[in-house]
C-alpha cells in the first residue's frame, strides 16, 4: 500500500477564503480523507455537516501544582521558572495555569517534593462521516497549548484511515500563520495550495508562508481569491509567483453568491458556477502534479 498523498491548503493570512476553497475541493475530489487541521478555529465542519461523530480526549502539556502543606516557602521554583508562572498569593506559592509551560523545572528543583506535574486535557479530536468522505477534525480547548501536537495527531488519524481504507489522498485545511501548527500541518505534505488575496497584507503573508513551504521543500501553487478587488496587486502576486517559479492556479473573482452561500452554511461551489469551474481547474492541476511525483 502506497502512502496517501497529502494536499494541504494554507494561507498565511486568515480570512482569505481557505476553508471555502478546501470545502469546495472536498466537494469534487474523489476518494479522500478530509482533515481540518485548523484546530484553533475549526470551521470546516460548518460546511461539511459531519455525522456519526466520535470524539476522543487529547492530553498534552503538563501543568505544575504545588502542595501547600508540603511547601516550605524556599522560593527556588519562583526564582528559576523562566515562564514567570509561580506567584505568591496570600503567602502561598501558586502556579498560574495560563503561564505554566509544563517544563517541570520546579518539580526538579523543589527540595521537598511539593510539586507535581499533571497532564491536562487540551482538546478533543473527532472522527466522522460526511457525504464527501471520512472527516477528521479537532477542537482545542480555548486558550490551551500544544496545537501543533494536536495537528500532528489529527493527521496521524487521517493517515491510518487512509491506509485502512486504501484511500489515495488526504485533503487538509491548514491553520493560518507560520507558527508551530502550520509547520505540523505542512510537514510531510506533497502539495501546498496557498490561498491569498490581492491586498498588501495578503501579499506580505504570502511571502512568509511561501518561505515556509520552500523551507520544507514542498511543491506549491497559488490561488488568488477576490482577484478583482485590486488588479494591480493581483499582477504583483503573479509577478511574485513567476519569480519564485510557482504556478497561479486560479483567480477567483469576488462574488455575492459565495458570501450568501457561506452565510447559509452551504457549500458554495454547488451554486456558484464561476467558483466551481475554477475549483475543477485547481483539482486537475493538483492531480497532474501528484502523478508526476
Amino acid at each position: 500500500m502506497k502512502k496517501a498523498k497529502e494536499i494541504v491548503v494554507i494561507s498565511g493570512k486568515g480570512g482569505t477564503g481557505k476553508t471555502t476553497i478546501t470545502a469546495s475541493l472536498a466537494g469534487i475530489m474523489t476518494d479522500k480523507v478530509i482533515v481540518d487541521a485548523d484546530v484553533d478555529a475549526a470551521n470546516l465542519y460548518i460546511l461539511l455537516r459531519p455525522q456519526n461523530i466520535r470524539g476522543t480526549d487529547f492530553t498534552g502539556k503538563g501543568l505544575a501544582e504545588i502542595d501547600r502543606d508540603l511547601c516550605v516557602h524556599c522560593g527556588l521554583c519562583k526564582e528559576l521558572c523562566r515562564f514567570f508562572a509561580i506567584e505568591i498569593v496570600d503567602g502561598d506559592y501558586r502556579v498560574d495555569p495560563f503561564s505554566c509551560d509544563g517544563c517541570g523545572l520546579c518539580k526538579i528543583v523543589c527540595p521537598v517534593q511539593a510539586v507535581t506535574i499533571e497532564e491536562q486535557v487540551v482538546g478533543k479530536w473527532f472522527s466522522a462521516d460526511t457525504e464527501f468522505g471520512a472527516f477528521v477534525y479537532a477542537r482545542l480547548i480555548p486558550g490551551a497549548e500544544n496545537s501543533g501536537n494536536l495537528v500532528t495527531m489529527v493527521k496521524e488519524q487521517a493517515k491510518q484511515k487512509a491506509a485502512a481504507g486504501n484511500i489515495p489522498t488526504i485533503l487538509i485545511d491548514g491553520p493560518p500563520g507560520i507558527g508551530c501548527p502550520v509547520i505540523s500541518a505542512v510537514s510531510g505534505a506533497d502539495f501546498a495550495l496557498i490561498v491569498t488575496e490581492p491586498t498588501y497584507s495578503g501579499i506580505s503573508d504570502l511571502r512568509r508562508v511561501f518561505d515556509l513551504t520552500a523551507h520544507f521543500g514542498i511543491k506549491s501553487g497559488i490561488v488568488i481569491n477576490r482577484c478583482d478587488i485590486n488588479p494591480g496587486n493581483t499582477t504583483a502576486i503573479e509577478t511574485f509567483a513567476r519569480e519564485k517559479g510557482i504556478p497561479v492556479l486560479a483567480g477567483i473573482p469576488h462574488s455575492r453568491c459565495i458570501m450568501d452561500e457561506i452565510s447559509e452554511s452551504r457549500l458554495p461551489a454547488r451554486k456558484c458556477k464561476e467558483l466551481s469551474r475554477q475549483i475543477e481547474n485547481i483539482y486537475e492541476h493538483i492531480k497532474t502534479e501528484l502523478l508526476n511525483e
Partner: protein
Amino acid sequence: MYIAVASGKGGTGKTLVSTSLALCAGECAYVDLDVEEPNGYIFLKPVIEKEIRCELPVPQIDEQVCTFCGECAKACAYNALMVMKQLKKTLFFADLCHSCGACAYVCPVKNALKEVKRTIGKISTGKTGTVKFIEGRLDVGRPSGVPLIACIINDFLDINDLLIVDASPGTSCPVVESLKKSDYVILVTEPTPFGLHDLELTIEIVKELGKEAGIIINKDNGRSALIEDFAARAGIPVLLKIPYSMDIQRAYSEGIPLIEAQPGIKEKFKEILKKLTAGIGQ
C-alpha cells in the same frame, strides 16, 4: 491602559480596526503582537528607529566534556534532547526546545552543557506621527511566537501609555499571552457562521481570563443579526458596526487606513476610546 484588539478568526478586520483606533487616539502606542503575520506597518507606515533581535537561551553540549549520563534528556519535557551513550553522541532539536533551562540545571558535569542564544525574531520600534510603533516579527521556521510576545510585553511597553494592541489571531497560547495583561478586549468579527463560531471560542478565553470585552462587527451587510443576537445573549456590548463595502475593501488592499477611506467613522472610534479610557479605575 492596555486595549487588546482580538479576533478568533483571522481576516476579520483586526488590523483594520486597531490601526485606525491608534490613529484616532492622538498619543498612544500601537503594538503589533500578531507576530506570525504582522501587518499593522502596512497601514501606519512608521519610521523605524530601532530593531532588536529577540533571543532565547538554548543548550549547547560540549561532547569532549559530556559524560553522556543522559540526565539532560531525561529532564527535558519536550524531547528536545537525545543522548546516545554507546555512540557517545548527543542530538539537540532546536525547534522543540522551549528554553526552560531544565537541562542546564540538572547537568552534573561542569562545563558539559552551556546555554547559548538563539534568535527567534525581531522587535522593531519607531513612530508614525504621534503614535509610537512597536512590532514583533517571528522568524520563518520558528515554532512559537509566545516568548517574543512575552518579551515585548515585559520589556517594551510603557504601562502609562495608551496601548492599542493588535493581538494574535486564533484561540491558543499566543492569544492568551497577548490578552493576559489587557484592561479591555475589543473583539472584531464578521456576521458569518465562521465568524460567530470563532467569536464564541475567543469569548471563552476572555471570560476565563476575567476580562471585560466589547464587539465590533466588520463587513456588516445589514441583513444578518447572527452576531448581535449572540452578543445580546452573552451580555457583551456591540461597540460598532462597520458596513460591508467594496470601497473599504479596496482601500484595505492598498494599505489605506479605514479612517482615511471613511472619514465619517473617525468620530465613532473617538467615542469608543473616550468611553474606554473613562472607564479606567472603576
